[in-house]
């Protein structure tokens, strides 16, 4: 399989296949379908290099990110999504959200 991410972040390829998702809806659904061990591992691995990943993306203008950098940004977005489950709720679902649903129907790209 060819690389999804810039070579500098090759260590996250295993997560990239799973978590490089362009929309919040997909990221939220992936979180709901994931277990805490999976998400904990991704969270732990990526935490150390989040800042570096942001810096890396910011070498490019936001509207001209190369494809692999766009995927790195998607991975960061997913990391934000996962952090809610890991840091706050300790479960995929929002605590006390019952069966409430809120779909994101519009978002800036990337």
């Amino acid at each position, binding site marked *: 399989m060819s690389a999804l991410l810039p070579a500098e972040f090759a260590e996250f390829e295993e997560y990239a296949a799973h978590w490089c998702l362009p929309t919040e809806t997909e990221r939220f659904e992936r979180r709901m379908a994931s277990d805490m061990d999976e998400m904990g591992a991704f969270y732990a691995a990526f935490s150390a290099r989040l800042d570096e990943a942001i810096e890396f993306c910011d070498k490019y203008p936001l509207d001209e990110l190369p494809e692999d950098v766009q995927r790195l940004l998607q991975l960061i977005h997913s990391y934000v999504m996962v952090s809610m489950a890991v840091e*706050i709720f300790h479960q995929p679902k929002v605590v006390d959200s019952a069966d409430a*649903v809120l779909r994101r129907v519009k978002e800036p790209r990337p």
Partner: protein
Amino acid sequence: MSPRYPKPPEGSWTEHFGLDTGPVSYADSISPSFYERERQAIFRRAWLNVGRVEQLPKAGSYFTKELAVLNTSIVVVRGMDDEIRAFHNVCRHRGNKLVWNESPDEETQGFCRQFTCKYHAWRYGLDGSLTFIQQEDEFFDVDKSQLGLVSMHCEVWEGFVFVCAAREPEWSLREFLGPMITALEGYPFDRLTSRFGYRTEVRANWKLFMDAFAEFYHAPVLHSKQSPDKYAVAAREAGYEAPYYAVEGPHRLVSTSGVRFWEMDPGSLKPMEVMTRGGLFGPWDKADLGELPAGVNPGRCKPWGLDSFQLFPNFVILIWGQGWYLTYHYWPTSYNTHVFEGNVYFLPATNVRERIAQEMSAVTFKEFALQDANTLEATQLMLESGYVEKFPLNDQEVLLRHLHKVVGDWVEQHAGVPA
């Protein structure tokens, strides 16, 4: 105990606004017949916000809006003359829905030079005029000039597009908004165009969800997991109070004090908030919006957190001290269901770091809102059961009282008016 925020001279906000202090009934939220009266007395008379001008970037841009509360669907379009107009989304030939995409009950948007009905290819200009009838000779005494799309009153204020279903509106849009709202003129809504939009269907009366977002009394309790411990303690000590309330006509406002919780000790913060510099209160790096109009933070709170302007009947503009804003819309679909729309608006991010802080803020907004929406259905069912008829409201819940009062007043005053 922290010092409490001063109350108005009457001793409470509730009395200050001349509102009753007794327990309230939610009979207005559980009755199909009351809902019918609300539709006539409120939604067919008031100016309703249906979107923003940025959704119509150029001549020919349009969007549709399903307005079950008005029993109609509309199409809002920017004409060749740059005017924005609203029309009932129905072909004059056989009553078919004119503009739709995949599914006729879903809203859509796009760009076109004219509207063409899918059925018999009647065509309408962007100004609503009927321009083409297929096989016109087969009709009898048909006068195209009499068969344009049926328009709805449409006015724009500060980039917000409003419609009014009344045959003749009782107020211009600016009159309807009144001085408390129009004092927001000059706020850079037109620059805050990076939008995160959310939507859901809620099985509860529209006012009950408005109520849930109309007070901050619940915040440190329901959202305790997300609130920093220190904030929860501080808020509890302060009595969960908001420093400033205002009502004017049917509209209302609450401002909150700004707890800059990123200035708290690190133990209060989640790692992600530190890393992304964003969260509950928005991006930590305050957007530079220049000088703000006088209508913002009218209570001159310092520190200032946010203003929640609740525009009657169903529209909320929530302006954050950090330089961004939210809107909420509550669109009734029946007496016990509605569609909720939430939109988060930021300055367009100029780099990934800013984008991530926005993402963090938007994601956090959603997780909060999911908790706020959680028990609405159960609340609706319990209210409908009717075993309890009256419920107490405290002074921090004064805006709920005002909403239900205004709704009741409008419905009562309209009674007997011919439709």
